[in-house]
Structure formats: structure tokens, C-alpha cells
């Protein structure tokens, strides 16, 4: 992919250019950021409060709301990102994508840039969920390092699911089908993960699924970094490695498929 440092820097500039386009659009019209906040708030305020009261889920000593908060952050990153491929279809229909694809930028920079641009949308969620969690009395680990790491993991995780969505977009090519497949993917990814209950409660086959589900690793990392009394089940290093390697693999696949979205 890269021949030495100058080449690497040049491809990074190309990646950043695509991400920058996404951010500038968001700056011209930030309404989306606000409407996106509602859903995670409802999960925390309604689902979280009720489950907190009935204490039905063994969370290893954590109050349920504490257990849930990082799960909801991961969930909102997933929900935002899984439909992100629509923007690639929109760009295909409008012709903007054609312009990107005739440029000499390597295809993987176009994909990664887009995924990172999509990932930044989730960062605003992190801020809001943090604020609300604090207000609801979740015992948050107020350490700058941990908080930066949360942002980094949120970005990584949502870039990963954005890339997955781009792959689906390249394969199905229409908005309607992408919406359908997105719906089909979100529920299993969300429920077969440790976002709202621990993996050890699950029947064997389901716990196996959640162990290969990247969302579980994102939740594990966020939970470890966000809460005072929580320890990682697999280790932050494993979380990082799983998410990064998955992102690389998905980016490589998406780069291969990307030009096909035009045909």
C-alpha cells in the first residue's frame, strides 16, 4: 500500500480530504447531530431506569444503569453507522462519487476517509451520553486519558460499522435494499453482544456469536474505560486488536468493491 513515509503521508492527506468533506457538510448542516441524540437518551432514561429498578440482570455488582451506559454508547455508534452506506449511494446518484473515483487517490483512502468521516458523527453521541450518564449518577472514571481513549474507540468502532455498511451499499446498490439489510444486521449485532446483558448469561451458541461480534469488543473497551468499578473481560489490547484488524479487513474488501457501486 505505501512506499515509505512520504507515500504514507500523501495517502493520509487523501484519506483526510474525504473525511474533511464529511465534516464540512456536517458543519454546514448540524441538525442531524441533534436528532440523533434522542434515541440513546430514551434507552438510558426508560429501558435503563426500569431495568435498574427490577435488578433482573446480574452485572457483577455494578448498578444496571452503569452497566448499560457504555453499551448504549456502542449501540448508538452502531445504529448511526450501519445505515451510513446510504450516503455513498446518494453520492453515486448525484455524481459526486464519480469525481472521487476518477481521481488518482487509492480506493482504500476513499473508503477509509468516508468511514472516519462517518465515525466522527458518533463522537457527538459520546459527549451527550457521558453528560447524561453523569447526571443519572453513573460512577464515571473522570480521567482525561480514559476519556480520550473512549473517543478513539468510539471512532474506531463506528468507522468499522460504517465500512460494513459501505460494503453492503456496494453489493445491493439501492437505498431501499440497504435500509432492509441494515435493519436485518442491527438487531443481531446489538442483541448478540454484551451491550445490555453480560455474555455469560447467554446460551452457548449465542455466547459464541457474541464472541465473534465486533460490537462486544467495542462495548468491553468502552465499559472498562468509562466506569470506575469495571474490568475488561478480554483486555483492552485484545479489544483494540480485534477492532483494528476487522476495520483493516473490511476496508480492504470495501476498496475492492467500491468502484462496482457505479455499475
Amino acid at each position, binding site marked *: 500500500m505505501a512506499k515509505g513515509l512520504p507515500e504514507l503521508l*500523501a495517502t493520509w*492527506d*487523501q484519506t*483526510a*480530504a*474525504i473525511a*474533511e*468533506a464529511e465534516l*464540512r*457538510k456536517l458543519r*454546514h*448542516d448540524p441538525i442531524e447531530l441533534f436528532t440523533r441524540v434522542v434515541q440513546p437518551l430514551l434507552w438510558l432514561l426508560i429501558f435503563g431506569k426500569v431495568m435498574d429498578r427490577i435488578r433482573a440482570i446480574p452485572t457483577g455488582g455494578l448498578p444496571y444503569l452503569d452497566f448499560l451506559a457504555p453499551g448504549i454508547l456502542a449501540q448508538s455508534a452502531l445504529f448511526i453507522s450501519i445505515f451510513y452506506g446510504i450516503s455513498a449511494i446518494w*453520492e453515486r*446518484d*448525484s*455524481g*459526486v462519487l*464519480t*469525481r*472521487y*473515483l*476518477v*481521481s*488518482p*487517490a*487509492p480506493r482504500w483512502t476513499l473508503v477509509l476517509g468516508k468511514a472516519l468521516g462517518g465515525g466522527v458523527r458518533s463522537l457527538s453521541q459520546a459527549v451527550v451520553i457521558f453528560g447524561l450518564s453523569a447526571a443519572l449518577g453513573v460512577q464515571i472514571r473522570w480521567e482525561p486519558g480514559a476519556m480520550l481513549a473512549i473517543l478513539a474507540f468510539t471512532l474506531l468502532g463506528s468507522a468499522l460499522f460504517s465500512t460494513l455498511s459501505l460494503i453492503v451499499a456496494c453489493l445491493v446498490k439501492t437505498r431501499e435494499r440497504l435500509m432492509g439489510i441494515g435493519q436485518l444486521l442491527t438487531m443481531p449485532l446489538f442483541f448478540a453482544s454484551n451491550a445490555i446483558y453480560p455474555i455469560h448469561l447467554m446460551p452457548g451458541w449465542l455466547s459464541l456469536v457474541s464472541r465473534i461480534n465486533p460490537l462486544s469488543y467495542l462495548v468491553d473497551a468502552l465499559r472498562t474505560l468509562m466506569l470506575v468499578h469495571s474490568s475488561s473481560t478480554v483486555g483492552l489490547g485484545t479489544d483494540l486488536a480485534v477492532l483494528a484488524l476487522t476495520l483493516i479487513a473490511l476496508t480492504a474488501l470495501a476498496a475492492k468493491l467500491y*468502484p462496482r457501486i*457505479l*455499475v
Partner: protein
Amino acid sequence: MRFEGLQFSGAPDKKRMVPLGDNLMLGLSPMARDPSTPFAIETQEISRRFGSFRAVDRLTLQVRAGAIFALLGPNGSGKTTTIRMLTTLLPPSSGSARVDGHDVVRDPTAVRARIGYVPQMLSADPDLTGYENLSIGAKLYRIPRAERRDRIEQALEFMGIEQPAELVRHYSGGMIRRLEIAQALVSQPRVLFLDEPTAGLDPVARRTLWHHLHELRERWQMTIFLTTHYMEEASELCETVGFLRSGRLVRLGSPEELCRSGSGQRSLEEVFLDIAGEPHPSEGSSYADALRTRKAIRRHG
């Protein structure tokens, strides 16, 4: 090939623009006709099939550097497919093509670095400003940081974009087209591809665009490859035109030659109607094609 020392401002010079006919025809590039000038575009029996449909059928074509060439033909005759193969967006099913000396299949990155493409569809992002559109492009083409600003401003000035800080959403159709060309110019391409650049534009905007295309060729010997449905445009701009029908090249020559052929002097439009009317197996345009044209026209109109 630089934009340096460019004195050209947005409002086109009326003297030069209006009577395009004679003076510009006389000004047609001697270079483009000189047999020693290398070919900027060369295709060898290039074909593209979609399933069993032959969109482009064994097309062999050469365009000399510095020429303005137009590909004409009815809807669905394969013009856009040809451009998409030459711009590396679509791999040919068979045959080969070289653009500025580089093979479109074997060395797509080199081709991409040397061309500009203005598709029929809107390619400027409406949710960004004109300047932002150019700046994103400049980064994708690896234009060194120190040069970016100058190159963007020169391209904007050359194409007469007066509101670069405005969202493209609020531009007029003609201005969007000019912005898209400015976008393609930032990388100083050797070959510029334009797919129906004046579809849906009013006569003034159309002439302004012609003027700019002439300017590009005269100043920087840029090779321009375009498709159009306006025969007037082809006669004004091009030294060579090719007619496609059902993916095949059925005529090739200068507009004057094509008009002379047959019984006496005809207009290019009559030549077109003749060729389009000749019986051929698979009939004209598809639904998707019609939809695409309508969309493009709606956006610019």
C-alpha cells in the same frame, strides 16, 4: 501547462464570444491536425458488454493531442460508456485504450492523474461551497500544500466563479457546470473529458462554456473529448467528430467533411438524422438512460 500569468477574468469578453463561427474555426489548432502530433487518446477495438448487450462494439479511435473531439450519436449509442472506459471507471470487456500514453486497464492511476472528467451528472457536492469542492479535489490529486490555494483561485478565476464561498446548492445551472470544469482544471489535466457539458444550459451559458473550452485548448493545448446532442456545438468546437450508433463508430471526420459528403452541402444536424435513421438492430435509448438525461437536465435547468 500552468495557469500562471492568467489575465482572464470571469465575465467573458463579448467580442470574442458572440460570433463564434468564423474566427474560431480559423483558429482551430494546427497542432491537432499535424500528423507528427502524438495521440492523446487511442483505442484499439475497445468493447463493453452488459450481459448480452453490446454498449460499445470494437471502437477504434485516435485523437491527437490538442484537439477538441466530439462523440455524437443517439441516446444509448454508447457515448457515456466510451467515456467511462477512457476515464478508468468501467473496465472494457475487450480491446485496449491509452490516454496520454498510459493504458487505462494496466495503469489506471497514471491515467487518472492526467485527466479531468466532468460527468453528465452533477459532480460538485451541493452541500459544500464552491471553494471547498475544489479544495477537496486538490488534496485527492496530491497538489502540494503550498500550491493548492493559488491553483484553486486560478481555476475559479479562469472559469469565472464569483461566489466560491457560497454553497453549490445555491448556484445556477450554468455556474455549476463552470464550477465542475474548474474542479477538473485544478489538477491541470492533459486530457479533459466532458459528457454532455451543455445539456440543459441556456444559450448564453452554453456559449460562455464554448468560449472557455477554446481558451483551454489555445492556452494549454489541452485535449478535449466531449459528447453532445447539439450539432451546432460540435461544428463550432471540434476539428473532428465521430458518430456512434449502437456502440459502433459509423462516421469519423471533420464537421466540414461530414457535411460535404453525399449530395451537396448539408447541416451536421441533417447528417445526424440520416445516420440515426439508418436501420439498425437494437433500438436506441433505455429507460435508465432517459432517466439519467432528465435528471441531469433538471439539475442544471
